[in-house]
């Protein structure tokens, strides 16, 4: 008989093992052993009787955002939905109306984000908008599972496999480690009994094929996405060019982010540049990451030298962005689009500069610029489609 893991949907016969308690799946065993015969389900605790499901936003959604938001609620009835929206289009705000509808109908819902850093930031944003109990679940925050709305990393979804959500919203399904990880994708899928909503700026072909797609290629302030400038340099001259670029921004008091491909490179560049600039380094190995990001948001720092850890989900007001060694294999076209999307997100400075410093002009760099230009071009056609 063909074995299928009830948690991660693994079907590979090599990844099943018969232990003392029966057959279990070894593909997802790092989340604790799951016997394939064990398919009991638990029930959720009841929602509090005084649950408030209203959304409070500090700003009003644009007409286009309202239209997309309405369509999400309609289309979720019939199957999985993908919202293909450019970076900074307000994807999180788009799904708030849907979350509110679900909570009103007393449905269980989770927002799944691949990155831990973004979980905490998004949970804070939801706390400002909803007057209900919101539980962030990620590394370091694993005690509270009782929230009316759960915001968690994909890894934490295994805790809810026995209960199952009515709907799951997956933000950035194209991000590491969710992207290309069949086990995580299986666990998230099996933790949901209804339809799923994907929010992405750079969806892959399988999502585009399997979901109903809603497109939003314009930002709320109506400005185009900043198209990156590509500058080909040598290794030493590139570093000097970067130094001049950063100094210029510090003088003009424009905050900046410099993305570099490797942690060691980030540390070394910070060490050199710190002699003349008020900057810090932010990588996955940085200990006081939250503190540094906070400082940057408060404009106490002129800039940050970071790795792809800050490529998505985090908004700094009015920043300029430079990618050093943009032709490095770490930077895929999706991640370059996300990095370029850090620029001009707020209406107080809806424009800015994005610079790619490359040693060679890689296909990924060219593809990312082409995709941003395509999104800017398509903006008008989507507007007319929605209007009709």
């Amino acid at each position, binding site marked *: 008989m063909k074995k299928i893991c009830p948690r991660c949907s693994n079907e590979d016969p090599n990844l099943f*093992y018969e*232990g003392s308690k029966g057959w279990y799946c070894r593909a997802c065993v790092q989340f*604790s052993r799951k016997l394939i015969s064990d398919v009991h389900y638990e029930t959720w605790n009841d929602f509090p009787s005084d649950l408030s499901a209203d959304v409070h936003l500090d700003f009003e959604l644009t007409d286009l955002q309202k239209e997309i938001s309405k369509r999400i609620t309609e289309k979720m009835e019939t199957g999985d939905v993908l919202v293909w929206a450019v970076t900074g289009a307000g994807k999180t705000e788009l799904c708030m109306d849907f979350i509110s509808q679900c909570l009103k109908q007393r449905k269980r819902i989770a927002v799944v984000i691949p990155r831990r850093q973004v979980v905490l930031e998004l949970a804070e944003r939801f706390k400002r908008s909803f007057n209900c109990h919101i539980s962030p679940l990620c590394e370091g925050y694993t005690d509270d599972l009782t929230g009316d709305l759960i915001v968690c990393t994909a890894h934490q979804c295994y805790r809810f496999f026995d209960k199952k959500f009515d709907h799951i919203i997956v933000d950035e399904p194209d991000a590491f480690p969710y992207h290309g990880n069949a086990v995580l994708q299986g666990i998230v899928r099996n933790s949901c009994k209804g339809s799923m909503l994907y929010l992405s700026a750079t969806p892959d072909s399988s999502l585009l094929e399997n979901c109903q797609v809603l497109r939003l290629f314009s930002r709320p302030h109506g400005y185009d996405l900043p198209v990156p400038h590509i500058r080909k340099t040598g290794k030493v001259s590139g570093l000097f060019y970067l130094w001049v670029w950063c100094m210029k921004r510090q003088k003009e008091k424009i905050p900046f982010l410099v993305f570099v491909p490797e942690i060691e490179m980030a540390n070394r560049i910070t060490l050199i540049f710190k002699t003349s600039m008020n900057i810090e380094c932010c990588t996955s190995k940085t200990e006081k990451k939250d503190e540094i990001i906070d400082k940057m948001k408060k404009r106490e720092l002129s800039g940050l030298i970071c790795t792809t850890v800050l490529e998505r989900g985090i908004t700094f007001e009015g920043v300029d962005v430079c990618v050093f060694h943009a032709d490095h294999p770490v930077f895929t076209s999706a991640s370059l689009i996300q990095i370029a999307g850090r620029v001009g997100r707020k209406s107080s400075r809806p424009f800015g500069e994005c610079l790619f410093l490359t040693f060679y002009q890689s296909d990924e760099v060219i593809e990312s610029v082409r995709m941003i230009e395509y999104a800017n071009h398509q903006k008008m056609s989507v507007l007319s489609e929605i209007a009709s």
Partner: protein
Amino acid sequence: MPTIRKCLYCQKSLHKQSLMQYMMNDALCLSCRRSLKIKRKTLQMKSLKITYFGLYEHDLAEALLQYKECMDEALKEMFLSEVKDWIRFHYHNCVFLCAPSSSKALERRGFQHVISMFEQCGVPILDCFEKKTDTDQKQASFQKRSEISDVLVLKQEVDIPDKRLILIDDIVTTGSTLLALQNLIKDKECTEALCLCIHPKLLAEYDKKRRRFCIY
């Protein structure tokens, strides 16, 4: 369709193995085998000579966690496969006495992890100790761990044979469990213990005192 052999731990294809691994039909790929850093060493703790095969850190610690806490029973054959012949040869005609697990952990896992691990060496193992209460040593402090002797007892129905006795355990953190077990069978001579790994802190303490081990 021929089945593709996969590494037991990283689950990648097994095409990268050393000649020796291939000959021994090792279940791990070359990089996993190297990352475990299995190497035989000994230390003397009071009257007990402890032979261990690695330090409880990095990949070995992660693999042990997956085996014990995630209950991945399939991993039982990966830990001692490199040294099983040495154990069989060196300890022939010996009886291995296994350190006990709490009944709660045993029920949850469905297998005694130390016995399953050492069974791969083909040696006789006697499960003659038990814990009176379900104490969890994982979160216990250094001081608390030394109180383990109050919890451990010898099973009444078990008859210990008159052979060379070897205590076995998976991890030695402070050594209190092994010393308590040795104390329980003090009428029999038992001066040797075998464990998969020791805690790096214990080794540091041991190195500091230069073979004059006296933390108790």
